[in-house]
């Protein structure tokens, strides 16, 4: 079984730093923080998933994305879409620090796969409705939890910090499943970029809009927060200047290197799509 560390506080810290404690939407569960705060003169909705050790589901007490969390994200993102239908589409910022989706018998029985899909659907629908959706990775962005909370964003930003990582499965679990040692997995990550755990390797996949360097991720000061606000605004402007699809992920120069096969597949598909 995995060793129990105290849950990460990064999501909460950055949520409070960016919103300044203002415009909080009171609701349950406590594990999903929602607030509307001003960014660059514009109302912006922030959402974060944080640990709640009193979560009514025992398997979601360490900051995992569980049934209630996924549903709450879907609810509050959809309320944003509804509220802005006749107005300017406010930006939506997903502050991402999620160690995994919740693992449990009841999570499966009650359909966590659908709850996560509902969250992803809400974010994607917001993007398609014209809201600039930005994912700001301040800690872990793992597997189903990241698919639900962040991966449907127009633009993905990440802090350049050792604890920041994107992956399909935590090291210990992945080592057990693939019957390798953690050291072997880390070794593979050195030559096989998509297997690596560090955020700089992830940046080489061309999926990140910006890797934000030189920021204190654990205890951000005023300048750190200002720096991130500037990057968020730039990402929002960039999203608004582009189209709502995720095509920009394949267009970056990094992607042309590390995701060349993805583009080649699409090129051949386009060639073969209509019968000769």
């Amino acid at each position: 079984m995995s060793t129990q560390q105290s849950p990460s506080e990064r999501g909460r810290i950055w949520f409070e730093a960016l919103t300044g404690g203002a415009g909080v939407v009171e609701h349950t569960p406590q594990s999903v923080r929602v607030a509307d705060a001003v960014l660059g003169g514009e109302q912006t909705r922030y959402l974060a998933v944080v640990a709640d050790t009193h979560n009514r589901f025992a398997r979601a007490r360490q900051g995992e994305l569980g049934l209630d969390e996924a549903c709450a994200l879907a609810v509050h993102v959809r309320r944003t879409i509804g509220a802005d239908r006749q107005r300017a589409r406010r930006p939506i910022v997903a502050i991402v620090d999620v160690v995994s989706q919740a693992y449990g018998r009841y999570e499966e029985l009650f359909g966590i796969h659908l709850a996560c899909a509902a969250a992803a659907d809400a974010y994607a629908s917001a993007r398609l409705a014209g809201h600039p959706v930005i994912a700001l990775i301040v800690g872990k962005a793992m597997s189903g939890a990241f698919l639900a909370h962040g991966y449907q964003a127009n633009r993905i930003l990440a802090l350049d910090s050792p604890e920041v990582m994107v992956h399909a499965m935590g090291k210990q679990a992945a080592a057990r499943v693939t019957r390798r040692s953690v050291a072997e997995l880390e070794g593979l990550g050195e030559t096989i970029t998509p297997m690596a755990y560090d955020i700089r390797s992830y940046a080489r996949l061309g999926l990140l809009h910006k890797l934000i360097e030189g920021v204190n991720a654990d205890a951000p000061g005023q300048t750190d927060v200002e720096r991130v606000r500037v990057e968020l605004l730039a990402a929002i402007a960039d999203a608004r200047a582009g189209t709502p699809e995720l095509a920009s992920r394949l267009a970056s120069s990094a992607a042309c290197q590390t995701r060349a096969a993805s583009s080649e597949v699409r090129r051949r598909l386009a060639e073969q799509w209509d019968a000769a």
Partner: protein
Amino acid sequence: MNGVAAPDCRRFLARSSFIELAARERARAILDVDTFRELVGPFDRCKSPWLPLQGIVAQADDGVVLARGTLDGRPALVAAIESAYQGGSIGEVSGAKIAGALELALKDCEHGRPVLPLLLLETGGVRLQEANLGLAAIAEIHAVIIALRRHVPVVGVVAGMVGCFGGMSMAAALCSRLIVTRQARLGMNGPEVIEQEAGVAELDSSDRALIWSLIGGEQRHAVGLADDLVEDDAAAIAAAVRDAFALGPPLVERSAQVDYLVKRLACIDPQRPPDAIALRRLWREGAVN
């Protein structure tokens, strides 16, 4: 044999297992006869760039079969995952094939040439040997399913024996209509991983009856997480697919019925959680309004 048994016996003998078919044959079995045309097939040799680096032999189609054809004469696209290769896991290329094909279907739909998208989902989720590129591709698959649903229903089939897990279980949940067999399983985390992470008391992954009672096709259908429960027969599944498309899009997609989801979860007390059978009563249509 009495008069009742004989017709059952004939029908049983005439039954042709869908589960036993490889992905290519499954796609062919569902599309209208003689309309199957494969895209980016084995001879395109779009293989995984990452598996040979780890000493794993790459399959020429990377475990996904894409085919255009028709369903009752209507243009269709089938993406069928081959579960015998790497557990049907999604890597860079297999994920790009599914996402890229759906993206082209979307383009056609946007230009007034509807294409019916069908996903044959037999997958353990992300291929860990390609981790982040598999995960990214799954996000792109989610994105295009959501966009496609605005034009046409997206239909999924989970037949077994591998089932549909990981990020692709979210893809199943995003489908407008989902067809399952009794042999199917549909869940986010595989039983082995849950046992590994949470202990055998949480879930004994060797208890097959328990697993199917929680996440099997019949249970998923009984609680409204799948739309159609069909026997393991190629003709029956082909018919169910046509019926699903003929129904047209649902009023509200399952993954967009957020208030309903919240209500269903609200009537669960995690201190006294219902078991699988009790959940069927709790969540039966009309019980939650």
